[in-house]
């Protein structure tokens, strides 16, 4: 928005002030008929903001001639032109001759009919047209001439009729009645646009006149950097986890073995999740090693873990009858892109099993992660081959469902999500398993917001955890709450290279729990 006093309307401003100096008030359309509305308005607003003038807006309808109306005003109505042509020809005119004389078929067609109706002409026996009166009064032309000069007509019926005949159109015209303001003068005084260091040094600010600031305009655009909206939501979620005593897991392993991604989690080797349709397998490098210690101080017995995993799948163990199928070590060593971060949780729990707390047993623990997972899915508005999984794990002694439900209430409550309902579900590595729903006001129905459950003893006891240590797991995607938060319906607008950078730059901050 323009803040400076100079501008193309400077001349108009002077003319307005001079005209006002001579009379109490002026009408803009009369005093400056050639100036456009925009020019007049801009000039008046500048003067008004300085209290140099006041003005009232006058709105009225003006009649303007359409091209056909212009033609009639200049040459006469169609019927009058037909009459004149016929009258001038002593012998009368055939229609063809008439057309030739006037040179416009349309004028002849319309004018002929009207001239008959007015009884100005008639058709002789030889088919020629002859005039049957000496003079006529061309009313339409007169009316249009008046309108052309005055832009109106005293009889509203006439205006309506001409408009209907598409000879004129009505147009709203705004003009201004202008009066002197309290600070009327013949010139706009010199104005400073800004307070400067020089003015402060010289003291000139004391006498200077400051140009009014346009408070309706936006301020200057900031060269702002921005964090990605997904990461803003991620940040909020991480804060919730920290507040609730969770330790962030190291999830820097996109490539996992089938063993950690599936077998360790008691996902049988024929499970559909392990299909090529659902999971990305790795062509190179070819195969993982068997699970092994990652550091010298890792004292866990990996060999026993491997054997126990086979046993619990194939023959049953720890009170489970198992899946009773021939478990293949080779299948477990196939490399995959992790389909969930639970692969990392399994690894963390295996480490936890080797930790001795103050009482000689593994201590209670809470782990979380928010990181990328991969599914070999066909891409659409709600599915990408990659997304972020938010995962939490709580390990403690003799945990019960009541604690899990209460925990989820607190956790989602911190996200501003209430009214949770839990539906029994199936998951190979948790039992009980449940889907978490929340009533969505906007959609008017329950929407699934996450999953949770208690890890199966087949998973935990194989990992080497004590029988009375139970572990809750829960998860949700990062994209879903973010899409809801920002009202996005296509996941590709959020994750990946197709994101609109102005969306990144202008997405508001995220504050969970605050009323939107």
């Amino acid at each position: 928005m323009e803040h400076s006093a100079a501008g193309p309307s400077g001349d108009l401003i002077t003319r307005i002030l001079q005209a006002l100096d001579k009379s109490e008030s002026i009408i803009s359309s009369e005093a400056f008929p050639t100036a456009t509305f925009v020019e007049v308005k801009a000039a008046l607003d500048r003067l008004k903001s300085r209290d140099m003038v006041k003005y009232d807006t006058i709105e009225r309808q003006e009649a303007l001639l359409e091209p056909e109306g212009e033609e009639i005003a200049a040459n006469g109505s169609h019927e009058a032109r037909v009459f004149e042509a016929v009258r001038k020809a002593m012998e009368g005119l055939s229609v063809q001759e008439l057309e030739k004389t006037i040179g416009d078929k349309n004028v002849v067609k319309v004018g002929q009919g009207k001239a008959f109706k007015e009884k100005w002409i008639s058709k002789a026996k030889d088919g020629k047209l002859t005039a049957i009166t000496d003079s006529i009064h061309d009313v339409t032309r007169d009316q249009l001439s008046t309108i052309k000069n005055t832009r109106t007509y005293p009889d509203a019926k006439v205006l309506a009729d001409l408009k209907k005949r598409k000879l004129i159109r009505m147009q709203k015209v705004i003009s201004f009645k202008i009066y002197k303001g309290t600070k009327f003068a013949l010139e706009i005084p010199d104005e400073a646009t800004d307070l400067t260091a020089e003015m402060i040094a010289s003291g000139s600010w004391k006498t200077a006149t400051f140009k009014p600031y346009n408070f309706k305009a936006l301020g200057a655009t900031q060269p702002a950097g921005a964090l990605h909206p997904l990461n803003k939501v991620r940040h909020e979620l991480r804060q919730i986890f920290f507040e609730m005593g969770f330790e962030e897991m190291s999830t820097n392993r996109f490539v996992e073995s089938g063993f950690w991604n599936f077998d360790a989690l008691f996902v049988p080797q024929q499970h559909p999740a392990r299909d090529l349709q659902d999971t990305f397998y790795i062509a190179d490098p070819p195969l993982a090693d068997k699970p092994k210690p990652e550091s010298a101080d890792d004292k866990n017995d990996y060999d026993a873990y491997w054997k126990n995993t086979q046993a619990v799948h194939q023959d049953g163990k720890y009170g489970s009858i198992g899946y009773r199928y021939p478990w293949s070590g080779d299948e477990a060593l196939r490399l995959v892109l992790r389909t969930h971060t639970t692969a990392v949780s399994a690894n963390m729990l295996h480490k936890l099993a080797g930790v001795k707390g103050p009482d000689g047993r593994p201590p209670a623990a809470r782990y979380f992660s928010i990181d990328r997972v991969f599914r070999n899915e066909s891409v659409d508005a709600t599915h990408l081959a990659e997304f972020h999984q938010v995962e939490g794990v709580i390990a403690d002694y003799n945990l019960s469902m009541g604690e899990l439900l209460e925990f989820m209430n607190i956790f989602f409550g911190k996200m501003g999500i209430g009214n949770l309902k839990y539906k029994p579900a199936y998951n190979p590595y948790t039992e009980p398993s449940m889907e978490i729903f929340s009533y969505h006001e906007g959609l008017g129905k329950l929407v699934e917001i996450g999953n949770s459950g208690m890890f199966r003893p087949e998973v935990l006891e194989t990992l080497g955890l004590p029988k009375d240590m139970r572990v809750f797991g829960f998860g949700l995607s990062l994209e879903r709450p973010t899409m809801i938060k920002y009202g996005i319906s296509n996941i590709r607008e959020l994750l990946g290279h197709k994101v609109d950078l102005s969306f990144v730059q202008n997405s508001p901050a995220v504050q969970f729990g605050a009323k939107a």
Partner: protein
Amino acid sequence: MPTIDVDKYALFEELGEQFTADSFQDLCFDFGIELDEDTEDDPQRPKDEAPLLKIEIPANRYDMLCFEGIALHLNIFRGKQATPKYKLLDIPESKMQSITVTEDTARVRPYVAGAILRNVKFTQATYDSFIGLQDKLHQNLARQRTLVSIGTHDLDTIKGPFTYEAHPPKDISFIPLNQTKKMDGEELMKFYETDKHLGRYLHIIREKPVYPVILDADKVVCSLPPIINGDHSKITLNTTNIFIEITATDQTKLDIVCNIMVAMFSKYCAEPFTIEPVKIISEHNGTTRITPSLTSRIMDVEVDYVNSCCGLSESPEAICKLLNRMAYTAEPSKEDKNIIKVAVPPTRADVLHQCDVMEDVAIAWGFNVLPRSSPNKSMTVGSPLAINKLADIVRNESAMAGWLEVMPLILCSHDENFAWLNRKDDGKTAVRLANPKTAEYQVVRTTLLSGLLKTLRENKAMRLPLQIFETSDVVFKDDSLERKARNERHFAAAFYGKTSGFEIVHGLLDRVLAMLRVALITHEEGLGAGKIIDFKVAENPSKEEGYFIEEIHEPTFFEGRAAAIFLRLDGQTKRIGEFGVLHPTVLEKFDLKYPVSTLEINLEVFL
């Protein structure tokens, strides 16, 4: 999750209750199945067809993959019906139908089971459901017939004893179901090659030297599992005596499928829930037995375990009552007060451990009304991961410096990661995917550059210049590790504008590293005039901690406008990344019209 279509009116009739939309939804929710759709108000539904309920079934409830199973379990759950007592018709082994297995079947599909349903009365609806259940079992538990396949026959058209044999394809000849021409095994494979439905099962046996066949006493081919039955013995709406044969490569799943088939449809036998057994004679591998085995498995379930997990304090008797509603028969042990003897019906193949029974107690009680308790049993300490904390510093500094954070994908095409950046794949760097659906996902990226350039490409219409960054992981092959690959956290930025922005990217590097309190060492002039860096130049800079840059000549970059970044920490010097003006041929590949300068460094070294 499999979705089952059931006739709405028939189901409500079977349940003996006219549910409202909400009340049926609630029932499904509480039980753990999901009402996906009700076609009652669907304008597409033909007027003469009853509305369908599309119900999603948990993937392990094979006993609910048909109308009969859904109705049965909802009725038991609502206390309207007791769990059926399935029983085998008591006939002497000598009079039993039998399937004799030859050793050759071990080469292709070693296991078989059989059962007979007598005096069945089908209606169109129950007949459709019977076919539908086979289909669902084939799709799900049987993994597209690879593990198990089912053949059903009109017993009155064939006669036992039956045999299960395996023969070279040429030696098998019969008219397949709904065909008119006799074909041998090879012809049959050719014939069904282009068949939309059956074509996808041919691979299971096609290359085997022998194909499995079920034959009757007159050597009539009943079926060629897992592909197709013979036309001769096909069942119809009027079939009353049904011979079911099931073949498999997995014995456990064979038994599950067999039990579910007979349990669901023995309901329609003249004597409901009664099944005529078939003797499987399999001398060569010692698995001679009588199928199906419909005995309930008795499981000892600990009362204190169930109560503790559910947060309840119920008596053994009360728990037994809850279990009845989940199709178990249960009674407290007479010897041990803490034990409940739970009979798991033969259809509940999902029950592996007492935790499964425990969950069913919780479902019968109602997940949403289980007593709540404070989750804060033990104190734990929250803490962030070091690399994420470090990355957050870099992310925040970059954003504060006016750069926009982007999150491109981690998977990309091989070209985007190598050729388009004028880089060569040495075969030792990038992890390659085996089964991507599109060429967009061929490798796991080893650089953040291609994602940044693709993001610029999609945002060319924005006002210039564009300044973007990403802090995320790339992956390298690493043979020393168990998983043969490792992630590495990188920081990268790209500038896109009418001028190259080289010094702006350089400035971002200086700024970020300054914020990481790493000092600048320049080779030639030492510290430039006016530069304020929080470290002292020492006489021997090689021992000082800090970073320096050195010009490089690499085809990714425009000659003379690229440098490597070296970091010296603890006396070790390491190249941590590079920055420069991209080579115009790179820009062309990514369809970028203006110059781009990029920066990429490894952040892990700062840990």
